[in-house]
């Protein structure tokens, strides 16, 4: 594809009509809660969009995010958008390997300086100068810092890149951190999830390609269009929660009747994501629909939010031990203070002596 080719031409070559493209933009706008009146303009600008260079760096990760992305369910046109971007480096998807692969990355970074989109999945270990994860002899830390310099914007895909994720779970032996922990001079979009929903990744990327700008983000850098509400707020089991009907085990009457999974550890109330509406696997279902509580994977530090099967309101540490110690210590302190009180009372008593009028007279005479 020629360097200054635009998406409209690619569409024409693929035999995809502009009507179809308009339809795609309509669907995209609807899923991102954008005003439908913007769609025609959006379609026009997207059609004129130039080929976007993308560099995808994978650090401490499990490739689940890439798996999710490649299984995104609206293949026809979104995959086309991905044909249209120039994925200049992605060490799982690219054909090149070894030295050639690294060279491609450096070349893309030089050629599209200031214009490429940097996508990161996986956290970055910084302990011991980042030696815990290296690619081609280069630490992840170094590679991110280099690549971030020339990036127009950064997309942190997955909870690891966005917030540190599993590698950052206590005690975090590799000193894993998120992209935002290291880079503060570039716009960063976080698309957390373990993994994130494929359609959410593609939706956010399509939004970026269309407008050349990042969508509206919440306080932890997530696009509000997809992370604006908690799972709990859009959960179809919510009426059971409100009525106080809970499954107590995974195979009791309540579980069979589809009651709320709060007591079984559902983290839906504290998790912002769109699983309940966008769903997974071609809109088949989402975890709660399959009978398992939400594990809260799109939240910062979700691995340290207590056991998967512990309710949101349960404390994260043992309270019984400290409580017993506190009572014993309190009793001891009470006894000690009482003893002190008694002592001072006693000494007051000891200093006590009888005063008669004669003694007072003598005192006065002095």
């Amino acid at each position: 594809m020629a360097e200054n080719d635009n998406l409209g031409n690619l569409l024409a070559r693929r035999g995809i009509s502009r009507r179809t493209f308009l339809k795609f933009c309509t669907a995209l706008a609807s899923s991102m809660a954008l005003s439908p009146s913007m769609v025609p303009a959006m379609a026009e600008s997207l059609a004129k969009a130039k080929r976007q260079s993308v560099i995808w760096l994978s650090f401490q990760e499990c490739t689940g995010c890439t798996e999710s992305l490649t299984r995104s369910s609206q293949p026809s046109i979104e995959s086309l958008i991905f044909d249209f971007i120039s994925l200049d480096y992605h060490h799982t998807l690219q054909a090149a390997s070894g030295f050639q692969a690294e060279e491609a990355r450096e070349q893309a970074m030089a050629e599209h300086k200031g214009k490429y989109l940097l996508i990161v999945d996986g956290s970055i270990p910084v302990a011991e100068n980042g030696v815990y994860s290296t690619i081609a002899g280069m630490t992840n830390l170094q590679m991110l810092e280099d690549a971030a310099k020339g990036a127009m914007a950064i997309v942190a895909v997955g909870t690891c890149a966005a917030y540190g994720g599993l590698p950052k779970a206590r005690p975090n032996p590799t000193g894993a951190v998120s992209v935002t922990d290291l880079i503060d001079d570039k716009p960063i979009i976080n698309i957390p999830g373990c993994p994130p929903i494929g359609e959410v990744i593609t939706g956010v990327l399509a939004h970026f390609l269309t407008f050349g700008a990042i969508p509206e983000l919440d306080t932890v850098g997530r696009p509000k269009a997809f992370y604006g509400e908690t799972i709990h707020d859009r959960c179809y089991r919510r009426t059971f929660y409100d009525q106080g009907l809970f499954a107590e085990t995974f195979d009791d009457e309540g579980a069979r009747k589809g009651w709320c999974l709060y007591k079984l550890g559902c983290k839906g109330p504290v998790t912002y994501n769109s699983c309940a509406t966008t769903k997974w696997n071609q809109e088949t279902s989402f975890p709660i629909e399959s009978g398992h509580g939400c594990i809260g994977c799109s939240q910062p530090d979700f691995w340290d939010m207590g056991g998967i099967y512990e309710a949101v309101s349960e404390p994260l540490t043992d309270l019984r031990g400290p409580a017993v110690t506190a009572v014993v210590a309190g009793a001891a302190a009470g006894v000690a203070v009482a003893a002190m009180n008694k002592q001072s009372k006693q000494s007051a008593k000891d200093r006590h002596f009888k005063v008669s009028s004669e003694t007072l007279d003598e005192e006065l005479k002095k």
Partner: protein
Amino acid sequence: MDTALLIWAKSTGLQWATIIMLLGLTMRVIQILLLGRATDLSEARNSDVMSAGIKTIFRRFVPPQGMLQKGLLVYLSGYIFHIGFFIVLLFFVPHIQLIDSTLGISWPGLRSSLIDAITVVTLLALIVLLLHRVWNPVLKLLSTPEDYLTWALTFLPLLTGYMAYHHMLFEYNTMLALHVLSVEALMIAIPFSKLSHMVTLFLARWYNGAIAGRKGVQS
């Protein structure tokens, strides 16, 4: 959305609040008990001093004659807020879940919408009591900063809980963290303020009842 704050509140914060509250309370109760009382050399007119004391503990839950009419609003708000507070504390399912996980005991909860309504009523009762405190000139004169502080410490857990449930002001996680923190503030204050009446009231009432009982009168 401060997950870190929530995690801290649910672990370290909760742990310390529990320790301080229990340590403080046991210390104060033991201290009071060991204080002892001067031996009463007179002959007891009623031998069942113990049950006289216990009766008083309960009798004092009922306002003395005439008082209810005099201070209807205060009595009513007082009851409503105490009862409401305990219902919300003990019958909201997430709270029961917390108790179950630490003490291993549980009981059926109430539906959230009911808890929600009770919370509103409780908050209103507390507001009425605050207004009474500032509007009544005598009470205002008698009030110390501690009175306002303890009012706020009681009010905040209810308010933050309500706001978290309704997604007001902050995102749920932050509000939930604030809710837990406000409860911890309350817990820490209990032993060292007039809030300790939640334990000492029983001692005081019992003692009053026992003295009166010894003298053969009802208290």
